[in-house]
């Protein structure tokens, strides 16, 4: 009945100051929770996307047992079985890689590195590697040159044009030793990899490790990452158990755990903010109920059912909540939208500690709709919870007593 909504609307404006104050407190809480949530979700998405792009892909296929000991001996040769298993509408790209360890040295400096052999053109098309080159040039498939990660280059004091000596163990223990010209310095947004990665063309890498045609992994990029489980089980069905099929979550367990524990912190923070909202709404609705007992008594006396009265009070609460959240969204959304395109760079201690967790030292923001939808639903639910007690007061309400007061 729209008269009830009309009455509810007018009622919340009877005490303008109080309503505005309540709305401001809800608004502040909405702003804070949207802001932190957007930041958290943005960071997670950024970490995941970096990990997926520069390290594992969404899904990887290895020879069974590779992930356990990461040995160059646990490699496989791409074949028809795999090629046909990877024909799936959700798989938009697959990148074959050979990945192992080597000692890199230049002059007096030596450091353990991760060597990745890949198809440079594919990596570039998919992950825009060439945009991450900060000095020199990107490599191509048939070249006999390497890219060195930024921090590794700094450590080894090498530059574009220098040669780097790589020393490692190839397939079945064959010694691998070679020197390569550095064609470019690349900045990889995963601090761990930025400290120790060397990238070279797949062919060259296979030659270096004496493992012609062999691969350690095939990384898959997905059209819809949400359907990863479904895609994995499809691939598993088609592949023999000589191979293992792993999801990015499994291969980036540390990161997933870091995200999960951080997310718990975020949810606790949210709970506190929601409590602020809840008490704000509760206080206001409670006062609005208590001070109108006599008015309610009159309405019941002339024949208004308590259920209608309850509905009116619920409307008052919902309107208050919706108003606050709409204002909150109007204020917060443009700010978050701006920040999502222009993430805040971090410096100093925070940046360092973020790097330790393997995260890029920036504050990216997410404007995924579910953040806003969840927030709206939560506030309305909280408002409805907060109104429960005032409603029970109305239900138990003694008309005569209220009339006499």
């Amino acid at each position, binding site marked *: 009945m729209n008269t009830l909504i009309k*009455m509810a609307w007018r009622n919340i404006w009877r005490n303008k100051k109080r309503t505005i104050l309540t709305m401001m407190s809800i608004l502040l809480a909405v702003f804070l929770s949207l802001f932190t949530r957007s930041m958290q979700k943005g960071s997670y998405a950024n970490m995941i996307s970096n990990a997926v792009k520069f390290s594992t892909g969404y899904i990887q296929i290895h020879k069974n047992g590779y992930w356990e000991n990461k040995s160059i001996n646990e490699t496989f040769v791409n074949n028809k079985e795999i090629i046909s298993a990877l024909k799936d509408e959700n798989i938009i790209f697959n990148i074959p890689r050979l990945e192992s360890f080597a000692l890199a040295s230049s002059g007096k400096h030596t450091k353990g590195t991760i060597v990745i052999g890949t198809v440079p053109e594919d990596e570039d098309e998919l992950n825009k590697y060439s945009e991450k080159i900060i000095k020199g040039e990107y490599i191509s498939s048939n070249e006999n040159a390497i890219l060195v990660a930024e921090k590794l280059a700094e450590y080894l004091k090498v530059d574009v044009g220098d040669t780097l000596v790589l020393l490692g163990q190839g397939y079945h223990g064959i010694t691998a030793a070679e020197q390569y010209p550095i064609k470019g310095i690349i900045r990889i947004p995963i601090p761990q990899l930025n400290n120790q990665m060397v990238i070279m063309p797949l062919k060259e890498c296979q030659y270096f490790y004496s493992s012609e045609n062999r691969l350690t992994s095939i990384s898959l990029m997905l059209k819809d990452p949400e359907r990863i489980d479904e895609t994995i089980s499809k691939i598993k069905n088609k592949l023999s158990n000589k191979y293992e099929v792993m999801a990015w979550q499994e291969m980036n367990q540390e990161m997933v755990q870091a995200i999960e524990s951080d997310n718990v912190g975020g949810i606790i923070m949210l709970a506190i903010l929601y409590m602020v909202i809840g008490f704000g709404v509760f206080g206001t609705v409670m006062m609005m109920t208590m001070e109108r007992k*006599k*008015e309610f008594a*009159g309405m019941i006396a002339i*024949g208004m059912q*308590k259920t209608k009265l309850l509905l009116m009070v619920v409307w008052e609460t919902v309107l208050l909540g919706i108003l606050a959240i709409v204002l909150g969204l109007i204020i917060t959304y443009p700010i978050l939208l701006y920040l999502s395109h222009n993430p805040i760079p971090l410096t100093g201690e925070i940046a360092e500690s973020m790097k330790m967790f393997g995260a890029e030292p920036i504050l990216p923001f997410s404007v995924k709709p579910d953040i806003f939808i969840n927030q709206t639903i939560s506030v309305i639910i909280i408002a409805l919870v907060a109104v429960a007690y005032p409603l029970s007061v109305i239900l138990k309400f003694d008309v005569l007593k209220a009339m006499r007061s």
Partner: protein
Amino acid sequence: MEHFLAKFAKHIKKKVIELTRLIIVISYLEFICLLKIDFWDFTMSIIKTINLNKIYDAETEIPVHAVNDVSLEFEAGEFTAIIGPSGCGKTTLLNLLGGLDRPTSGTVTIDGTDIIKLSSSEIIDFRLRNIGFVFQAYNLVPVLTAKENVEFIMQLQGIPKQQREERVLQLFEQIGLKDRLNNRPGKLSGGQQQRVAVARALASKPKFVLADEPTANLDSKSTSNLLDIMEKLNEVENTTFIFSTHDSRVMKRARRLVSLEDGKVVSDNNQMEHR
């Protein structure tokens, strides 16, 4: 001898049949009379209380017998004042009549319905459809305009818009506030608010209107104005008014006076008329 006996038996039989016929006719007439009286009663008295009692603090050492064994009947079209000193039980009695309060014992029958047997939500609906209320403190809904206040009760009853509009205009004509339709109660004087309250009470043509000291907060001019309106509506719409007062000027306007003392009816000029 045998012949005589047979004749006697025949005679007895005849007498028995006659007697039975007589009894049947008498009881039939009686039945008709009873029905008629009942029917008569049914139409004329809309409220009837039998041995109504309300005792406050019954379990304590000083129970208050606010309404004491009151048996009253009110008929359609009455214009009745309940009078008596402060604390004599006027408010309590009106609350019992309107189903706002439950008696300690006794019954209240309104138009054949024993309202004490109704559930609390049934009684709210019963009030909505049968009883109009006017309160001492007006009790209009402050966020609704004068017009909306009157309309509100009809909306609760589910009366269509067109009909509501007509009724509102008709009533505001009667109470002389056609120019204040869109004012909220806060913008109206006490007298004007009470006139709106009377219009609201009458909006859905209830069987009767209960008013507990409707003029207590009004000055003498507003009081006589309100009584004029109530009298007019009583005549025009044949609405029954039962109101309490301890203002002698208001009592003078009532056609029936029921006077209470310590919860007991001590005089009732209606009954005097009848007997």
